[in-house]
């Protein structure tokens, strides 16, 4: 274990763990987003429910959930630690800041964006994950996850919260995607621009798809 202690003792080790867990979470987003997108078959949630059932019952996926939570917690823990650590590196602050001259606002706000995402996640997990995993919506067949969603998103407040969550996600990813590669040490004058454009595309498409779901449901585009 001593070999890996640097992941919790050095700045670069901590950052590396941030990057790794970040990329892992990105891969999860891809899966989650693909499952969600099934609602756009507009088949009264049939495909979606099938996918959801698979995700909820397959033992490989279910055991990956522990890894996912582990990764998420590590990402949150390291993120909060570094946030505090970095803020403490400059006890006396500048009276004039001109950050916009040298960097994007969202790259400087990953802590805030991450915290917003965390808050959103609490709401989101309460709404769907808890219900789907610890009640029998799916297994009992009384109410499908799809129906549950339709109910929740009939209300405008959750829709607004979800859209705001997706905006946070978008900006978090806009910086986070390419930043993870940089942190892992992947930087090359030919490939880095490709990673950067892919990252931008990914952030926008994934966030849009996520946001489209509650909106579409609320507006009854999806039946």
């Amino acid at each position, binding site marked *: 274990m001593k*070999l890996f202690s*640097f992941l919790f003792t*050095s*700045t*670069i*080790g*901590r*950052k*590396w763990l941030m990057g790794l867990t970040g990329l892992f979470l990105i891969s999860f987003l891809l899966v989650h987003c693909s499952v969600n997108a099934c609602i756009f078959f507009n088949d009264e949630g049939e495909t979606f429910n099938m996918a959801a059932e698979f995700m909820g019952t397959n033992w490989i996926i279910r055991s990956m959930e522990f890894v996912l939570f582990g990764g998420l917690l590590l990402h949150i823990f390291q993120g909060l630690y*570094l946030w505090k*650590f*970095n*803020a*403490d*590196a*400059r*006890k*006396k*602050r*500048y*009276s*004039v*800041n*001109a*950050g916009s*001259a*040298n*960097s*994007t606002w969202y*790259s*400087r706000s*990953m802590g805030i964006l991450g915290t917003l995402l965390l808050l959103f996640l609490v709401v989101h997990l309460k709404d769907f994950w808890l219900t789907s995993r610890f009640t029998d919506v799916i297994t009992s067949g009384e109410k499908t996850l799809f129906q549950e969603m339709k109910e929740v998103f009939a209300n405008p407040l959750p829709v607004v919260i979800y859209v705001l969550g997706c905006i946070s996600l978008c900006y978090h990813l806009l*910086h986070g995607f*390419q*930043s993870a*590669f*940089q*942190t*892992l*040490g*992947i*930087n*090359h*004058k030919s490939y*880095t621009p490709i990673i950067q454009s892919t990252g931008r595309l990914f952030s926008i498409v994934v966030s849009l798809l996520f946001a489209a779901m509650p909106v579409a449901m609320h507006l009854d585009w999806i039946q």
Partner: protein
Amino acid sequence: MSNSNMNLKLKVWRQQNANDTGHFEDYRVQASPDMSFLEMFDVLNEQLITEGKDPVAFDHDCREGICGMCSMVINGRPHGPKHGVTTCQLHMRSFSDGDTIVVEPWRSNAFPVIRDLSVNRSSFDRIIAAGGYVSVNTGNAVDANATLIPKEIADEAFEAATCIGCGACVSACKNASAMLFVGAKVTQLALLPQGRAEASKRVVAMVNQMDAEGFGACTNTGACSAECPKQIPLSVIATLNREYIKAKLKGY
């Protein structure tokens, strides 16, 4: 070449010593557009001395942009509003008549203020002393052309080696991180065959020292590279990360 005078209002950070809390003081000064920013401060100081007041302490030496000693945060930006220049190479033509200019020292726990705008950057020396070198004693060398180095590699190493150690990267970084500085040296020496032999040992030692000095961690905002007077590229930090992880996984 205009001789027209500019009237400027300066808000300058004054601090007696490291323990003083410090405050801003306002000054008025006349400058010419052809003056460098530091020459404008010379004028201010002559004015203050003549008035019987304490001049502003600020670091400067070569005044041609290479020694890395000058260090002022001007309107929130290290070395002022122009990209790729040090404060000594910043000229007053970059400002306009009537401007108010706020001048602060580099701020970071690892760069304690000595007085006014002068800070102590010996933490950088300690990082280099930890491993920023090739361990070769005088007299050990083989013929200079015995090791061929492709031009592209030599150029890339040179680009990283142009770092002047001024600390603008730390000053610009919202986390007061020194990774551009450390990355530049690690990159230069990791690229060259001469430095390869102890690359793993070097990077671990330098990062350990960097952490011990109290610099923050990099969050890849890119502010350091954008404000670097020598425009050291952000890729040196990726190289630093890569070299470090590689070394750690090898058990260093």
